[in-house]
């Protein structure tokens, strides 16, 4: 019974979202969508190896691996993800502090693992 109730609530929520989308203009919808940044990991590099974000901007990182399991770890930005091959790992991020952050692979991937890193710049 609980499951059915939950489903009804969820379905009602979807209906409300659908009607809101129906009245919003295409331009407004595009504005609301977070920017998507695709990052590819392979032994022993990230591509691109630097991305630039704006403080307060919500972005969606889509991270995929071309070979083995990697990690993407940036403690100050709260990023700690396992990047398994064969799927896209999505991370939504809204940086609140400007700065330059080092992102590292924290899933050991071979002899050059310790140098696998990229830079995330957050501008004011």
């Amino acid at each position, binding site marked *: 019974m609980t499951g059915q109730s939950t489903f009804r609530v969820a379905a009602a929520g979807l209906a409300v979202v659908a009607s809101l989308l129906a009245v919003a203009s295409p331009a407004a919808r595009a504005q609301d969508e977070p920017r998507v940044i695709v990052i590819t990991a392979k032994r022993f590099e990230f591509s691109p190896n630097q991305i630039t974000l704006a403080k307060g901007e919500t972005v969606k990182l889509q991270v995929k691996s071309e070979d083995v399991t990697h990690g993407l*770890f940036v403690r100050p930005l709260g990023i*700690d993800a396992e990047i398994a091959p064969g799927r896209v790992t999505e991370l939504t991020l809204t940086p609140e502090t400007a700065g330059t952050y080092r992102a590292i692979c*924290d899933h*050991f991937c071979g*002899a*050059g*693992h*310790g140098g696998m890193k990229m830079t995330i710049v957050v501008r004011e």
Partner: protein
Amino acid sequence: MATINGLPRRPDLVLFTGDLTHDTEKPGEHAARMSLFREISGRLQVAKVYHVPGEHDAGLDGGELFRSVFGPTSYSFDHRGVHFIALDNVSRARPEVGEEQRAWLAKDLSRFHPTTPIVVFTHRPLFDLRPDWEWFTSDGDDVMNLLAPYENVTVLYGHIHREDHHAIGHAQHFAARSLCFAFPDPDKVEDKKAIPFDKDQPFKNLGLRVIDRTAGSAAHADTVRVQDVELAMNELSGTEGFDQLLKPPTF
């Protein structure tokens, strides 16, 4: 090995804190290096020798090769009233000890009085030394919380290839120098880059130190003498492993 075997008083035991081997892409070579390490360390004329793996030993295969050569990656034992704990924070590939091992640790510690001297030896630091250099253990705080009730805790670790001492709470964390690939001071340098190998000073920031402590009289403090040991690597020159030392490090 010769330095340790030549000491006037032999150590009771020797602890290795991991990265016994450098990894390689050549099939079979990693297993050969692990066996070579066992053979070389087997020359120690010391009654007890213990090892934990580093990520270069166990990060790619979950510790399978290490276990086949040296046995379990985590365990504990008692020696002269000191409880020693080997912790594995590398074979899950990420810098973590993991829930299962922490549950084992909690059970292992439960039989000891808070004043029991405890020595933990592991590979990565159990505190945030420099997380963006991967010098941390993600659940290190959980491990140290389990150790918090104990008054005499010493943590010995490897990984950072430099000498370091941090006192956190009542635990003392120590790392010793490495035999290769010295790293700079993380408080002074932004980029994690090994200090280049210097042929003229091959053991600058590296190598062994012998520490002598002479007990002082009641009126005088103990005397501590620290002596650097000059090493030579002739035995293995010309091998693939030796050549790796001479190339720019890929850490």
